[in-house]
Each structure stands twice: as structure tokens, then as C-alpha cells.
């Protein structure tokens, strides 16, 4: 039995061993497998952890030389390897994304620079890029260069301060916060350089002029990097100038930013005094209520307190009396100075204007005072040019229908009645004229008009006889009107049939039925015949008709029933029958020439003549002894002309006088004409009816009908009564060059020297106004009735420009020190042409003959420091060999000249230019102030003072306000009840209300070194001398806001 027990143990052991081995094998394998798996897991975890541990950032990115230069910093604990760069162009989306393998290792804490320099990519600093850098472990960092364009950033713009005084600076701050949703860093953040000129746009709104002047910025120019959540700040500094309420709006955006992503800020100019913002602006009007703006520097005739006793220039009303001062600019080069003051004065950029009131001299210097008889410059285009010598008898009118002076029958013998049946003629006993029946007696009425001044052959435009009703009649009455066909109707006689036997005109006019005559003495349309021009025409057409002859008109029956009639008054100075005739010299209406405002030789007004029937004539027949008569020598006539075409077969008259005899041709005449077929200039006159022996002619050698301008000076010289009756002819071209001179053509042998030119004189036609019409332009007609111009005078006259360049001046605007020593030239304006304006005989003090000449000057922005002056100078430009300057006068400081005499207008100064005011100590000191607004104001006693700061001693003086707008002229500071109740200002009473746009006059107590309202208890009175005066205005406005205004009146003279 022991044997079997041992065996079972063995078996069991074997089985145990087997089982154990099996299990161990499994376990071992499993553990190995598990370990292996765990190892892999741990490896993976390590990779993940390492990936998470990786930290790096792009700290800088620039684009120098069109290559990226990126700096990356390893901010983690593990080394990294920058594997790739991804670059996309945000400005040009079509660009796509580019990938570049770089493989740059970066140790922990270290930086890698110059990344991107070696990649094949050209970058533009003006474009925006998104750059992504990826590591080997798959991490990435993304930045934006120059690119806030993906979404709007938070921008703010501030003006600090927002409300500033003029000439102060404000700081503009732009804050940029990176609030991009993708948390990207922004690199190279900068204000948009296309905004304005300094990466910020500025828009000003000015009441007059204002400015925002860049001082600095943007600072910094850019931010290299802006992380998410960070804020960048850019700064500008601007100086603001302007008037209260002027604004400057600043707008900024980012370079490559979204277009709508902008920020704005507004800076406003205000007057801030004593740290309080006042609602109203009070400006100085100085010691007088000058209505001039601070920018108007009037020229004054006073010369005290100016360098070298030159003229004053300041913003003060004219005070030089009713005539001011006339300055002869051709002999005097005036200089005008502002006063030197204690303030710095800035004027912004803009146009200045020199506004001069000037008067042209009518004649060149050599001819001044030589009493020209007539001048016609044709500048104003009137159809009836007036003689510039202000004598209406020498005016012109356009040719055209003449209206004969009505001729009234005044003599009994010039009207009569003839009985048809018996022929009896009654000239004197009948007290009326019955047409055609006197009761039942049929009769013919004869009317003889004396001195009918209608030229032979003239065209009758209209003719009427005006009767006056002698009785009231209504019966149907029709009569026939005819004329006597005679060259010169004889006087009526009482011979039977004297009236009816006369030859009748063929032409006849029926009048009737004549309207009823309802009132005795009526001389109206009912009593006026129809137009009988055909009758008159037939008479004047007669070869023997001569202007001034007698004309008979008859009135007989044309079917009137017996007993019917119209009864007219007989000869009388007031109610006698009156003949009215309108006529023209020939067929056609004729008329004045055509005016052109720039048609003259020097771009001035001139008249164009059509060569058909245009002409001018004197309004009256020229009377002997009249200045436009010719009479005896000497005479000179000058004019400019230009032909429109070559002269044809008919001579063309430029000017012509006619007189005794029959013109044209057989009369005394005086003319300047263009020869037929040649266009040569003829100057010809006859002293005896055109007889050859009495005719003298100067004729040019050259022809002048070529369409160019020429001046003709025709001279009839020789002493009166002398026998050397000579003519001279000077012709000059437009450039002042002598074209020709024909001199000394002696009158052959006639001792009669008088050209009896007692008709009208003409421009552009012959003296009969029926031919020789000129075709072209005529200008600047001048006639001397008693002077013969010599060659020198003629030459000077020919070089005068009566148009746009009659005078020339040089203007200088300089800055000087207080003594007038030159500091800086601001403007030099040379050879400024001044146009001619006809003075029309005006005298030196005739303001109406002065005209305004404005010249714009552009000195740019000007700064006058204390004790500097502005100096404006005017220099004369002398004549040249081809141009003769006319003298020019300028009027200054004329109180009566409207709107103003001469002045210089600047741009709006920052402070008023100092004045030259004078204060007389014997008067109460008063200062005018003007409430600019926007609110009405009161002035108070406490701080309103006038301060005088001595320029020489160390003592200053002041005065206390006493009243405002007092009218108590006995003493504006009187405390009497007459003044006290209304105007006084003291510690218990403020001033009256001063509305907007009103001037207030502030009166002060005596000026003392210890100011007091009682001179007896005050200090020493201010001595005479020079002081810098400042007025301090203390007050408050309607809104309850206080103000303290100081008004600098500049240098003031105090005199005893």
C-alpha cells in the first residue's frame, strides 16, 4: 500500500508542474504583451505631452527689401523645429497660399531670426499677409502682418483738449485694440498713410478762415506687434487757429484696415478766459466805433509814429476829412506801415487784396492841361456818347431819323382862306381856319411854313400838321391835304385865287372823317392830320429844294357836305398850326454804330461802323466859337481806327465837319478820311467852299486799310491869321511805332483861314450824312480846337494805352522791424497793369471819377512778432520807348468816399493789428466794443479797466469803468441823476444789456497810476506819451457764463 501512495504523489506533482508551467507561460506572455502595449501608450502620451509643451511665438515680422524677416522665439521647454511657413496675401485674395519648408530648429528660450529671407517670395510692405509657422510636432502660430483687414478693430480717437483757444495745440490720440476673434497677433500696425498728409485726415469748418497745422505725429509711426487684447496708441499734435466755434475734425484709420473702420474726434476753437468758457465774444472797436474788420488796414494820411514819416495803415475808419489825401503815384512812391505792437500776430494762408481808389489822367504828361475840346473813349457803350469834357453841347448821337424842330405858323400872313367860288383870299381878318366850309361857303385853307430844315432829297419818315381846336364840332368832315409843288413857296397875297392857283403836288392825303373836336383849345390826336409824308417827300425831292426854304400845304374839300367843318386856330405862338417832320438823309433808317466792350485797340470799348449808314453826329450844329468848331487854325484831331475791309471806290470818312456851302464837296469842310481804292489816310480841309485854292490836303504814302489798328493825329497848324496854313499827319501802329509822318503841306495861296463848320460834325460819314460811310472800328477820338500837336506830343499820345494798361505799378509787401528796417519780403508784384478809366473832366476831389482797382496778393501765412510792422509799398513804373504811361492819382483817408478809400485787406489776423489811436486827456476816455455773440451780455464794474502800459517808464496807469453808452455829453461819467439812472456802472450796478451785433461805448474815469472814480483822491494822472493800451472787459452773458476779455488796442498816444 505504501507504493501506491508514492506514485500518486508523483503523478500529482507532475500534473501540478504541468499546470504551473502553463499558467506561468500565459502570465508571462500576457505581461510581456501588456508591457509592450503600455510602452507604446506611454510613448504616445509623451508625444502628445511634448506637442502640448511646445510653445513658440512670432515676435517680429518686417518686410525689408521685399523679403520677409520673421523672428520666432521658443518660449517653451522643448526644442522645436520650425518645419514650414504658410503665407497668404490678404490684400490680394487671388494670390492663394504658399508653403515653404524651412526646417529651422530653435532651442528653448532662444530666437530664430531672418526667417523668410531665403524663401522665393517677394513681399510688399504695402500689402497685408497672414503667416502661419508650423513645427515638426504639428503646432502652429499665426500672425497678420500689416493686416487688420479681416475684421474691424476697436479704434478710438481723442482730441485733448477738445475745446481750445486759437493758436493753442491739441493732442490727437488714436488707440487701437486688437480684439480680433481669431486671437491673431497683429504685426506692423500703423495709421493709414493715405489719410491726409500725416496719416490722419483733417477737415475744418470756419466762419471765415481757420486752420489746423500739423506739428508732429504719428508717434510712433507703427507698432511692430500687437497681441490679442493689447492696445496701441498713436499720437499727433496739431495747432488750431480760428474764431470761436470753428472746428477741426480729425479722422484716422489703420493701414490695410477695413475701409469703414475709422475713428473721429473734433477740436473746437473757443475763447477761454480765466479757465472759464465764455459764451460771448467781445471784440475791440478801439477808441472809435470803427466799422472796419480787423483784416481791413485802411491807408491813413497821418505820418506820425511811422518809420521815416510814412503813412499809417491800420483798421480804423477814414479820418482825413471829406477829401482825404490825393497821392500822385507817378511822382510819389507811397509806403504804408502798421504800428508795432506787443502781440504776435498771425495771419493764415489766403488771399490779401490791395484795394486802391485811383483816378486816371486823361492825357499823357506832355499834354496835361492843354484843354482838349472833346474826348470820346466810347467806354460805356451808350448810344449817344457823351463828351468826356462834360459839355453836353458837344455830345454825340447816333445818325438816324431827324426830327425837325416843329414849325408853328405864327404870322397872320402865313395862313389864309380862299373862297373857292370867288377866289377871295383872307389872310388877316378871319380869326380862325374853317376846313372846308365856313358856314356854307366852301373854301381852301393855305398854310405856309417857314424855314423847313429838311435837306433836299432826304427821306421823309413821317410828317404831320397839328391843329388846335377853335370850335367844338362833330359834323362829318373829310378834307384833302396837298402841298404846293414849288422849290420855295412864295408868301401868300390877297390876289384872287392866290392859293388855289399854285401848282399842287401830285401826292395828296385824305383826312377824314375827322373825329369830333370836343373841346376848344384841344391839340390832341383828333386835331392831328394823318401822315402826309408823301406830300412833303415830293417837295423835298425837287431839285431846287433847299433846307430852310418855305413850304405851303393846302387843305380843301374831299366830299364834305355843306356846313360841316373843323375850325382850327390861326397863326399863334401857342396854338397856330404846327408842321412836324421826321426824316433821314437817305433811304434806310441809319442809326448808331455797334458798340463792343473790348473792340478797341487796347481792349477797351469801341464802336464798329458798318460802312452802310452807321455814323455819329454832334447833337447840335456846331456854333462858331464853340470848342468843337473848326474856325481858324490851329486844330488837332486824333483817333484810332481799324478797317473791316479794303476801301472801295468811295472815300470813307473817319471824321468830318461841314459848314458853309453845299456839302459834301462845295462847302467849307474839315475831314480825316481813307482815300477811295487805296486806303491812304487823307487829312483835308477847305476854308472856302471846297475851292481848290482854299483846300489843303495831307495824304499818307502808305495804305492803311489792312485791318490793323492805327492812330491818326491830324494837325492843322500855323498861327491864327498867318499864311503858313499847314497840315501835318502822324500815323502810328498798335505797338507804338511810327508808321508815317506827313508834315508841312502848305495851303496854296488862300488868305481865308476860317473853316466855317457850322453844321454838325460826324464820325464815320460825310458832313451831309448821306455817304462816305466808314467800315471798321473807331476809338479814342480827341479834338483840340486851339492847339496843334507837335511831333513829340503826337508821339506820346500815340503810345498811350487807353485800355487795360494805361498805368503800371509795382507792389511790395514787407515785414520790417519797429524802425522800418527790412526784415523779410512777403510779396513782390511787378508791372501790375492798371486799366484806364475816363475821368470825364473830374477834379482831384471828385470822388465819382475815382474807381477801384483790386490786386490780389498771396503772401502765405504771415507772423508778426512784437515790434514788427507790415509795410506795403507802391512804386511807379515809368514809360518806355513804345508805351506812354498816363499819370495816376490815388485817394486815401477820404471820409466821404464810399464804400472806402484805399486799403489793404489781409486774411483774418489772430489778434487785431495795433492801431495808431490818439487819446486826448481832456476828454473822457471811451472805448468802443462790439458784441460778436452769440449771446447778449452785461459788463460789470469789478474787472472792467483800461490799462496803459508805458513803453518808456516803469509806471503803468489804469482807469475804472464809469458808464456804458452814456449820452450825457456834459460828462459821460457824471453821477448826476441825468446820467446816473441810465448808464452808470459801479459796484452796485452793472451795465445796460448789450445785444448781439451791437456796439457799446464804455466810458472810464480818469487814467491814474492809482485808479479812482474821484480824481482828487486818486493817483497821478497819466502824462502824455506813448502807451500800450489794453482794455479788460469783465462781464457775463445771457447764459450766465462769466467772461473776462482783454482787448489790445496796441500803441496809443496820450496827449494833453
Amino acid at each position, binding site marked *: 500500500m505504501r507504493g501506491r501512495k508514492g506514485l500518486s504523489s508523483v503523478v500529482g506533482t507532475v500534473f501540478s508542474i504541468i499546470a504551473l508551467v502553463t499558467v506561468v507561460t500565459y502570465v508571462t*506572455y500576457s505581461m510581456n504583451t501588456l508591457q509592450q502595449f503600455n510602452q507604446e501608450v506611454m510613448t504616445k502620451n509623451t508625444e502628445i505631452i511634448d506637442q502640448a509643451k511646445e510653445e513658440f511665438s512670432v515676435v517680429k515680422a518686417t518686410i525689408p527689401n521685399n523679403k520677409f524677416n520673421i523672428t520666432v522665439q521658443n518660449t517653451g521647454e522643448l526644442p522645436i523645429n520650425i518645419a514650414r511657413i504658410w503665407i497668404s496675401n490678404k490684400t490680394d485674395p487671388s494670390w492663394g497660399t504658399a508653403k515653404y519648408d524651412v526646417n529651422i530648429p530653435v532651442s528653448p528660450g532662444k530666437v530664430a531670426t531672418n526667417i523668410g529671407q531665403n524663401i522665393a517670395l517677394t513681399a510688399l510692405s504695402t500689402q497685408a499677409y497672414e503667416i502661419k509657422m508650423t513645427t515638426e510636432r504639428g503646432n502652429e502660430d499665426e500672425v497678420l502682418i500689416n493686416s487688420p483687414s479681416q475684421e474691424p478693430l476697436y479704434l478710438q480717437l481723442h482730441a485733448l483738449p477738445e475745446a481750445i483757444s486759437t493758436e493753442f495745440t491739441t493732442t490727437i490720440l488714436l488707440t487701437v485694440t486688437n480684439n480680433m476673434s481669431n486671437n491673431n497677433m497683429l504685426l506692423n500696425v500703423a495709421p493709414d498713410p493715405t489719410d491726409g498728409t500725416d496719416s490722419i485726415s483733417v477737415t475744418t469748418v470756419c466762419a471765415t478762415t481757420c486752420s489746423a497745422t500739423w506739428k508732429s505725429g504719428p508717434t510712433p509711426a507703427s507698432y511692430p506687434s500687437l497681441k490679442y487684447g493689447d492696445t496701441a496708441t498713436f499720437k499727433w499734435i496739431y495747432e488750431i487757429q480760428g474764431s470761436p466755434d470753428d472746428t477741426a475734425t480729425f479722422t484716422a484709420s489703420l493701414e490695410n484696415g477695413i475701409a469703414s473702420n475709422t475713428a473721429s474726434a473734433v477740436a473746437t476753437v473757443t475763447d477761454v478766459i480765466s479757465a472759464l468758457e465764455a459764451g460771448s465774444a467781445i471784440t475791440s472797436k478801439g477808441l472809435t466805433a470803427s466799422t472796419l474788420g480787423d483784416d481791413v488796414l485802411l491807408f491813413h494820411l497821418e505820418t506820425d509814429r511811422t518809420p521815416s514819416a510814412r503813412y499809417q495803415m491800420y483798421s480804423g475808419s477814414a479820418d482825413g476829412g471829406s477829401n482825404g489825401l490825393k497821392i500822385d503815384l507817378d511822382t510819389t512812391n507811397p509806403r504804408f506801415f502798421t504800428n508795432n505792437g506787443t502781440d504776435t500776430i498771425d495771419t493764415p494762408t489766403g488771399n490779401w487784396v490791395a484795394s486802391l481808389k485811383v483816378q486816371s489822367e486823361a492825357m499823357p504828361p506832355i499834354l496835361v492841361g492843354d484843354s482838349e475840346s472833346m474826348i470820346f473813349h466810347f467806354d460805356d457803350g451808350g448810344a449817344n456818347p457823351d463828351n468826356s469834357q462834360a459839355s453836353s453841347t458837344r455830345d454825340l448821337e447816333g445818325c438816324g431819323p431827324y426830327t425837325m424842330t416843329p414849325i408853328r405858323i405864327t404870322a397872320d400872313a402865313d395862313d389864309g382862306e380862299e373862297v373857292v367860288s370867288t377866289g377871295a383870299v383872307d389872310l388877316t381878318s378871319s380869326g380862325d381856319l374853317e376846313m372846308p366850309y365856313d358856314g356854307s361857303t366852301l373854301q381852301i385853307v393855305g398854310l405856309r411854313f417857314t424855314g423847313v430844315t429838311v435837306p433836299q432829297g432826304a427821306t421823309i419818315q413821317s410828317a404831320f400838321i397839328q391843329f388846335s381846336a377853335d370850335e367844338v364840332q362833330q359834323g362829318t368832315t373829310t378834307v384833302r391835304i396837298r402841298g404846293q409843288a414849288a422849290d420855295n413857296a412864295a408868301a401868300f397875297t390877297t390876289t384872287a385865287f392866290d392859293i388855289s392857283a399854285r401848282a399842287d403836288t401830285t401826292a395828296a392825303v385824305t383826312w377824314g372823317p375827322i373825329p369830333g373836336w370836343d373841346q376848344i383849345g384841344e391839340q390832341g390826336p383828333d386835331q392831328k392830320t394823318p401822315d402826309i409824308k408823301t406830300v412833303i417827300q415830293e417837295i423835298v425831292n425837287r431839285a431846287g429844294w433847299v433846307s430852310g426854304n418855305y413850304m405851303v400845304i393846302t387843305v380843301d374839300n374831299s366830299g364834305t357836305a355843306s356846313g360841316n367843318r373843323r375850325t382850327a386856330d390861326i397863326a399863334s405862338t401857342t396854338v397856330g398850326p404846327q408842321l412836324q417832320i421826321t426824316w433821314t438823309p437817305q433811304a434806310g433808317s441809319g442809326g448808331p454804330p455797334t458798340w463792343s466792350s473790348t473792340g478797341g485797340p487796347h481792349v477797351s470799348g469801341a464802336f464798329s461802323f458798318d460802312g452802310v449808314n452807321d455814323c455819329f453826329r454832334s447833337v447840335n450844329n456846331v456854333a462858331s466859337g464853340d470848342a468843337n468848331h473848326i474856325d481858324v487854325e490851329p486844330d488837332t484831331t486824333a483817333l484810332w481806327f481799324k478797317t473791316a475791309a479794303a476801301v472801295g471806290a468811295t472815300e470813307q470818312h473817319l471824321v468830318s465837319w461841314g459848314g458853309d456851302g453845299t456839302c459834301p464837296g462845295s462847302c467849307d469842310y474839315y475831314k480825316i478820311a481813307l482815300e477811295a481804292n487805296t486806303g491812304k489816310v487823307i487829312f483835308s480841309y477847305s476854308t472856302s467852299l471846297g475851292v481848290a485854292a482854299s483846300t489843303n490836303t495831307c495824304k499818307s504814302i502808305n495804305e492803311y486799310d489792312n485791318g490793323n489798328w492805327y492812330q491818326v493825329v491830324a494837325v492843322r497848324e500855323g498861327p491864327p491869321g498867318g499864311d503858313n496854313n499847314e497840315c501835318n499827319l502822324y500815323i502810328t501802329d498798335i505797338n507804338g511805332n511810327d508808321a508815317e509822318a506827313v508834315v508841312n503841306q502848305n495851303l496854296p495861296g488862300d488868305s481865308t483861314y476860317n473853316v466855317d463848320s457850322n453844321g454838325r460834325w460826324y464820325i464815320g460819314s460825310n458832313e451831309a450824312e448821306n455817304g462816305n460811310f466808314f467800315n471798321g472800328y473807331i476809338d479814342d477820338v480827341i479834338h483840340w480846337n486851339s492847339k496843334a500837336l507837335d511831333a513829340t506830343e503826337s508821339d506820346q499820345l500815340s503810345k498811350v494805352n487807353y485800355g487795360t494798361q494805361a498805368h503800371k505799378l509795382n507792389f511790395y509787401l514787407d515785414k520790417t522791424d519797429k524802425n522800418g528796417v527790412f526784415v523779410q519780403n512777403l510779396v513782390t508784384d511787378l508791372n501790375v497793369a492798371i486799366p484806364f478809366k475816363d475821368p470825364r473832366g473830374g477834379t482831384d476831389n471828385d470822388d465819382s471819377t475815382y474807381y477801384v482797382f483790386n490786386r490780389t496778393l498771396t503772401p502765405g501765412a504771415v507772423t508778426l512778432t512784437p515790434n514788427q510792422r507790415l509795410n506795403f509799398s507802391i512804386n511807379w513804373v515809368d514809360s518806355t520807348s513804345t508805351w506812354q504811361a498816363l499819370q495816376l492819382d490815388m485817394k486815401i483817408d477820404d471820409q466821404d468816399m464810399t464804400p472806402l478809400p484805399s486799403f489793404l485787406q489781409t486774411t483774418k489776423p489772430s489778434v487785431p493789428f495795433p492801431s495808431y489811436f490818439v487819446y486826448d486827456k481832456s476828454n473822457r476816455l471811451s472805448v468802443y466794443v462790439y458784441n460778436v455773440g452769440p449771446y447778449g451780455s452785461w459788463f460789470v464794474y469789478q474787472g472792467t479797466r483800461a490799462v496803459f502800459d508805458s513803453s518808456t517808464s516803469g509806471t503803468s496807469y489804469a482807469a475804472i469803468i464809469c458808464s456804458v453808452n452814456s449820452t450825457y455829453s456834459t460828462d459821460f461819467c457824471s453821477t448826476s441823476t441825468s446820467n446816473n439812472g441810465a448808464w452808470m456802472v459801479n459796484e452796485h450796478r452793472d451795465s445796460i444789456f448789450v445785444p448781439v451785433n451791437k456796439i457799446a461805448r464804455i466810458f472810464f474815469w480818469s487814467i491814474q497810476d492809482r485808479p479812482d472814480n474821484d480824481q482828487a483822491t486818486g493817483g497821478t494822472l497819466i502824462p502824455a506819451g506813448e502807451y500800450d493800451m489794453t482794455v479788460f472787459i469783465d462781464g457775463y452773458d445771457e447764459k450766465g457764463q462769466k467772461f473776462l476779455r482783454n482787448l489790445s488796442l496796441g500803441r496809443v498816444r496820450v496827449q494833453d
Partner: protein
Amino acid sequence: MGWCNNRSRRGLSTVVTGVIMLSAVAVLGTAIVAWSNSNLFANQQVLNTQLATNVNKIKESIVIENVWFNQTAPKSINITLNNVGTIGLNVTSIKIDNETDGDVDQTNQTNDAVLPGKTKSYAIKFDWQTNIPVKIFITTLRDNIFTTEDSP
């Protein structure tokens, strides 16, 4: 009878029995060991394979490095992936979903092998809309799915 010598007959049966039992144990033991070994071996292969698969799966790692929205018609999305793992992988599919209208564009890429440290780019036609994000799913042969989301 006699008793003869019974002690000698009892010794032989013990030996035979012992031999028989040892033989049986040996045979059984061998058989068991053989069976367990073969069983273990067979399972070991499976386990090894499974281990390798899982380990490889763990080793796979993709980073979708860049997504670019191409606005040139027809619109597409350019996707660049980076194999940052330590084992090569095969991309089998890319799926894009804008999660708004259910529009899904799926491209099957078979056996697109990407070695470790290498990148692979795809241009997928897709009508993307501005400011509407898209999800991108990249599936590997080993059934790893890597996702990202981006917005044009």
C-alpha cells in the same frame, strides 16, 4: 496449497500499475502541455496582431496644417495634412461638413500613403460660404479620424 510465495505476485502489479499510471500521466501531461502550448501559440499570434494594430493606431497622428478656401470658381477647399506621427498611414477618406444644410462632400482616397513627417494636400470641391464654418474629417486606414474646423 500452500501458500506459495504471494509476496512476489504483489510486486509486479505495483510496477505495472505504476508504469501504467506514469505512462498515462506522461501521455496526458504531454498532451496537456502540447495543447496549452499550441493554444497559447495560436492566441499569441492573435494577441500580437491585435497589439500591433492597436499600437499602430496609437502611433498614427495627423495635423491638418492648413486649410485654404479657394474662391476661384468652382469653389474648393485646399487641405494640407501633416503626418506628425511615427508611423506611415493611409488616408482613406476626407469628409467636409458645413453643418448647415447638410451638404457633405466626401472624397475617398484609397491607399494615399503619407510617411511620417510628410504632408499631403487635397483640393476638395466645395461650395463654402463666407463666415460659415466647415468641419473636416480625415479617416485613415487604421480607422483613426482626425478632425478640424475652420471658417472662410
